[in-house]
């Protein structure tokens, strides 16, 4: 593949023609915020966090869906871009119910991480607090729409990698939702192979393993009585 030369943040660099700008930036060790992008899946340019400035254009470009080109002059972290990134994250936090303190994904969530890294420490917009359900019909996994950021990683991994295409979207705008099958309970989906790929790629606490969600931890105190009875009365009930 022919090599192209471009300028990134005032430094001359080279990349492979045909590669996406985002992959080059990653190779260069420039940390780009992303949410809908995941290496191995097709790119869709939806979260708008990886947008960059290109000299000579008033428009901004999502690096994940912009191929590198000879002579490009790219800026990745201008004040304007950083500001937009914070605002987009604020919009995401305001959209659904992202209450980290009671989320299974707390501490391992990509949305939370991006907020921290990009300096988003408060939300200036109205929380929309939509009234969204959970789908706990699947024997192994749980879907909580309240945590979903509509990145469609689950849709893409199921379609492109597993080949089952269980997931898709319904509705539009802020009323969009991921659905299983023809909008049926996940557990009723005949096409789900229970592989769990969607759960592993989901950036937030929207898709989780059953048994690991908040309130699912059950403590068992019975052992205390069993040990004490054994020690005091030398009766060990192994039944």
């Amino acid at each position, binding site marked *: 593949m022919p090599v192209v030369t471009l300028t990134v943040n005032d430094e001359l660099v080279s990349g492979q023609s045909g590669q996406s700008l985002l992959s080059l930036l990653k190779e260069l060790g420039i940390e780009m915020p992303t949410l809908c992008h995941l290496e191995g899946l097709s790119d*869709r*340019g*939806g*979260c*708008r966090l990886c*947008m960059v400035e290109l000299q000579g254009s008033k*428009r*901004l470009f*999502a690096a994940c*869906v912009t191929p590198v080109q000879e002579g490009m002059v790219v800026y990745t972290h201008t004040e304007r871009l950083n500001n*937009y990134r914070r*605002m*987009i994250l604020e*919009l*995401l936090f*305001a*959209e659904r119910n992202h209450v980290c303190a009671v989320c299974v994904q707390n501490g391992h969530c990509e949305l939370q991480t991006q907020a921290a890294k990009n300096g988003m420490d408060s939300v*200036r*917009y*109205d*929380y*929309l*607090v939509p009234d969204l359900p959970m789908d706990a019909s699947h024997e192994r996994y749980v879907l909580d729409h309240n945590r979903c*950021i*509509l990145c469609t990683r689950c849709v893409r991994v199921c379609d492109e990698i597993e080949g089952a295409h269980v997931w*898709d*979207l319904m*509705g*539009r*705008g*802020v*009323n*969009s939702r991921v659905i299983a099958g023809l909008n049926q309970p996940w557990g009723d989906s005949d096409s789900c192979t229970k592989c769990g790929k969607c759960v592993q790629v989901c950036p937030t606490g929207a898709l989780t393993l059953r048994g690991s969600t908040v309130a699912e931890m059950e403590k068992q105190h019975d052992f205390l009585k069993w040990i004490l009875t054994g020690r005091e009365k030398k009766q060990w009930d192994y039944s």
Partner: protein
Amino acid sequence: MNRVELQNMAQAETERQNAFRCRLLCCASTPCLSSGSTAVSEAMKQALTDGNLDAEVEVVATGCMGPCSRGPLVTVKMPGQEDVVYEKVTPEVAKEIVAKHVTQSKPVSENVLPADMPFFVKQKKVVLANSGQIDPERLEDYVARGGYAALAHALREMTPEEVCATLTKSGLRGRGGAGYPTGIKWDLVRKSEGDKKYVVANGDEGDPGAYMDRTMMESDPHRLLEGMAIAGYAVGADQGYLYVRGEYPIAAQRLQRAIRAAERRGLLGSRVLESNFNFRIDVRIGAGAFVCGEETALMASIMGRRGQPVPRPPYPSERGLWGKPTLINNVETYGSIAPIILNGPEWFSGIGTEKSKGTKIFALAGNIDTTGLIEVPMGITLREIVYDIANGIPDGYAFKAAQTGGPSGGCIPSQFLDTPVDYESLGALGSIMGSGGLVVMDERSCMADVAKYFIEFCMDESCGKCVPCRVGTVQMHRLLERITDGSATFEDLETLEELCVLVRDTSLCGLGQNAPNPVISTLRYFREEYEAHIKERRCPAGACEMNRIPVQELNTNSRVYSQNGAQAEPAQA
């Protein structure tokens, strides 16, 4: 059918029409149908039968005649006489027309529209030349007025390069909104490598209140088919798709019939006009999403996928439908092709301004005397449209602003009434030419309220793919709601302005990128009106019910933040 047979058809039809002593044209477009034109044409036919005039007089169901708010409209055509147009025709008036005008050659005076009315005189009909003149369901009627002659000429006398070059020379620009030069676009698709190429006509027309494309499709479907076929020849495509908005059943039906009629006569299908060119057209019906007018979403919809935009490049001219080079143009753009081929590019570029050539169709609506559909030369002033063609604002109210470009456009205040209407001038004022919606507002309209209306539209129509448009429009709508109900603070206005910039700069497709335009343009020209809502808690136009107060002011001791959508209680008087 070949060229000679086409000419014979034209001649036979002209002779047939001339054999009638009188022809009564009755509009059968959606606006007139809804105001009762079916009953009118029935009444005319009955009156003719009763008077034994069937053989001498013909009743023709035509397309749109223009002044839709005055419908049902009827045109009386008598050889050797000027056409007479009647407005607000009832079945009774229809009988009178037959009794007096047809029989005694005396026009029924009350309902006649004067022929020198500025509404008619100031227009220039190019795309709509046949609209209201022919029966859209009869191929012969179209052919008699020169139909398919441009296609025949292009196929025989011109190479595909020449067709593209002719369009480039004519200066025709896309009528779907962005105004991209049509000849250049065609040439790009022509040069794209591909074993298969497609031609698509965009008839999704989602702008609220706009109906230019519907009228074109309903009134003169063959003109559109001819334009698409010429496009197919020019770019090397053998398949066309006509994407019609789901809310336009009459247009879809007439187009489908027109396609069948043209195929039967060899004007579409295999070996068009006995040449080596094959071209089929299929109709695809949309499912009522504004975003499906955006070209990449439209193509996804044609392919049976969810109607969501995809990032460009690649542009459709490189990779469009099923990955093949695809030409996509607006319906009105295709409507301009045949006259350019027949009359030459110089004729077309002689109309209009330096950079905007030809004519543009507008759907006039709002606080004006005559609403309806007009076609005007580019460069006409807004003043001429509002005060001459539309006959001004009724009831003595003052002009406040004209809104062009619908949810992607902006408002133009009165100091710019003398601006020429063309792509550049409207763009410089912060609005856009758009696809042709033109809403006139008088002093009773509140500009913040207008902006809220359009943001609400974009919020509802956002596809949800990208975050700034999906969530940003919702937040903008909330802020505008606060401004128009009296509960906003200056901080809210600041937040709104920041969001406008974010959504404009970071959205994926044109819907989001242009959604803030109505807010930005009204803030540019009517800022004091927004401020009055906040500072004085007063709507200067008297349109908003200002019955709430800012949340912070409810309890002055402890600052309460408006959160979770909590609304303040109505102010106690």
